[in-house]
């Protein structure tokens, strides 16, 4: 084909999707519950098996 018809509409739609998604995400991040964030942050540090005894020889 020699050109894509009505191509002008696609960048506008894309920009709208992009802007709406990222603004939505920013709003969520600002309003999110601190307890949830703290729970997520600690996840790698809370994953030691409960039954393991200390193994580090100091």
């Amino acid at each position, binding site marked *: 084909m020699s050109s894509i018809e009505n191509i002008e509409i696609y960048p506008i739609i894309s920009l709208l999707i992009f802007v709406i998604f990222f603004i939505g*995400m920013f709003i*969520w991040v600002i309003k999110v519950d601190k307890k949830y964030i703290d729970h*997520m942050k600690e*996840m*790698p*540090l809370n994953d030691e098996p409960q039954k393991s005894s200390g193994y580090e020889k100091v």
Partner: protein
Amino acid sequence: MPGTTLEQFNYDNKIVKYFGVATIAWGLVGMLVGVIAATQLFLPEANLGNPYTTFGRIRPLHTNAVIFAFVGNAIFAGIYYSMPRLLKAPMWNKALSWFHFWGWQLIILLAAITLPLGLTTSKEYAELEWPIDILIAVVWVAFGANMIGTLIKRREKHMYVAIWFYLASFVTVAVLHIFNSLALPVSFFKSYSAYAGVQDALVQWWYGHNAVAFFLTTPFLGLMYYYLPKAANRPVYSYKLSIIHFWSLIFLYIWAGPHHLLYTALPEWAQVLGVVFSVMLIAPSWGGMVNGLLTLRGAWDKVRVDPVLKFMVVAVTAYGMATFEGPMLSLKNVNAIAHYTDWIVAHVHIGGLGWNGFFTFAMLYWLWPKMWKTNLYSTKLATTHFWMGTIGIIFYALPMYVAALTQSLMWKEFSEAGRLAYPNFLETVIQIVPMYMLRAFGGLLYLSGAIIMVYNMVKTAKQGKFVAEEADEAPALKPHVAHEGEFWHRAWERKPIFFTILATVAILIGGIVEIIPTILVKSNVPTISSVQPYTPLELQGRDLYISHGCVGCHSQMIRPFRSETERYGEYSKAGEFVYDRPFLWGSKRTGPDLHRVGGKYPDSWHYFHMVDPRTMSPGSLMPPYPWMSTNIMDHSDLPAKIRTLQKLGVPYPEGYDSQANADLMVQAEQIVANLKASGVEVIPESEIVAMIAYLQRLGTDIKKTTASNP
């Protein structure tokens, strides 16, 4: 909690151990091949006088080994340890885990065999031919199925950010691999790209840059979000930042591919998109770096004593440096100086040695004592490794910067009379040979540090006791009861399938926007009527060029700069490449650009130059190819090649496959006669005849005033 039963389960450490051992074993191989390649660049004798170990063939062996074998196995080791623990569920299926492991090692072995044999597509980081591509897809699906199965069986409701990075990497690499590898097979070991010329270039670098993004970066960011907090024993600096930079990164990165094609025949609009998105990428990349480094705030005293943290700090810093340098290199004015030079090589190795290498070392130094329930055998040796590696990186990168700027500025310099100051390409090569020696020393230091690490890991394992199955317990996942006012995000993020779909959409957008118009809209590749398909003999020569990896040192894309048109001839037009499957624009000029070498030298010059480059070009670093004058080319695959190309749309006349061999001999006899007139005797079926035919064709179509039949 009243009424909840604790379910008991085990984490599989054996698979982690195996992936970890594979990481370091292949790492040593990959680094050694790298040091050999680096040596060949100042000592052509190190090509060892046979086709299998020439630079053109072992460069892709090195890149595939360090990317897929070293970094690949490291990713899997890191994921198979962290993912089950973050989700409180073992990896879904042990059979899949082992199929993944052995399948991946088989792929590497096949690469190690096929690449030195010259069985290659020539497309960077996608050199492996189609049967291996299929195997890669199958193993990759197994890996993904294992991860998704684990997610479904998880006991932790929420997905920690590391898992987002793992999932996005899985999905994107699958998409990239499938689309870039599309080809029509000619035979079991040979295929032709589904794309040609400009379109192939765009698809290749959409893939190539995103291999960096989604194989070398996002999985490692995921690993960073797990292993850095573990090693520092403190949570990540800002979880909110990790969310924001994750989505921005995966959306923006895809568009950056065209920054590999600035000032080439790629349409201008695509180049602009590549530049703009590459510059925007600084923000999410540095979000990752900031998050990593600031996690250590208040723990810098630990860095002084812990080699794991030392490696991590340098790794994250190298990531920040490379992700600033990359966008800078994407600016057209900087790119005009840097493209085709060793600056790009330096940039790659800051990321590869610094970010990927060092983070892998850190992770292994952390994992080994954990899995053997002991301390690291020697902190001192690990610290020594750290310093050797760091100094190795410096000895690698700094000479490369000097070499790049020296060579690039020499290429561009004009005398007062308005002529090129250094018209002979070789003058620019000779200046930088000492820099190549320093770079090889840097690589050797880096490799030596890794060898020390192997010793340390072996001794650590010996003094400990391996825990193959690590027990843990957690309550089963309760079905979620929605409470009031809950934001959509938490609902979405708890649904890993939906999350994966969303991430897939994010990564598809950039590719669709850049690739579809380039393929469908004819005006993006203006037709040139005098451009014809390659003749059968030239096609054979082209495939020989591909199999020897000539594209590793020679570009075929003259940029619209006066310094290039003076040196090489008319700049390269998009329409000239419509029958190039795959494209051979190249990324590096260790040797000169060849796009308009056709007709520049007599056939005999090419003969002597291939047999021993230094007879025609004193001081040249090119490997000798003496066997080309005596090796017989098997032209029996020619009819199949013609038919395959016809299926891909190359306009050979109908029935030409039965005519091709005859036409080949006519053209070959002509070259034999030319050579004979210069005192050289060869038979028409020899490789050198095909190579000469191809080289003499390059760039000559636009000089023709009338279209002629092949």
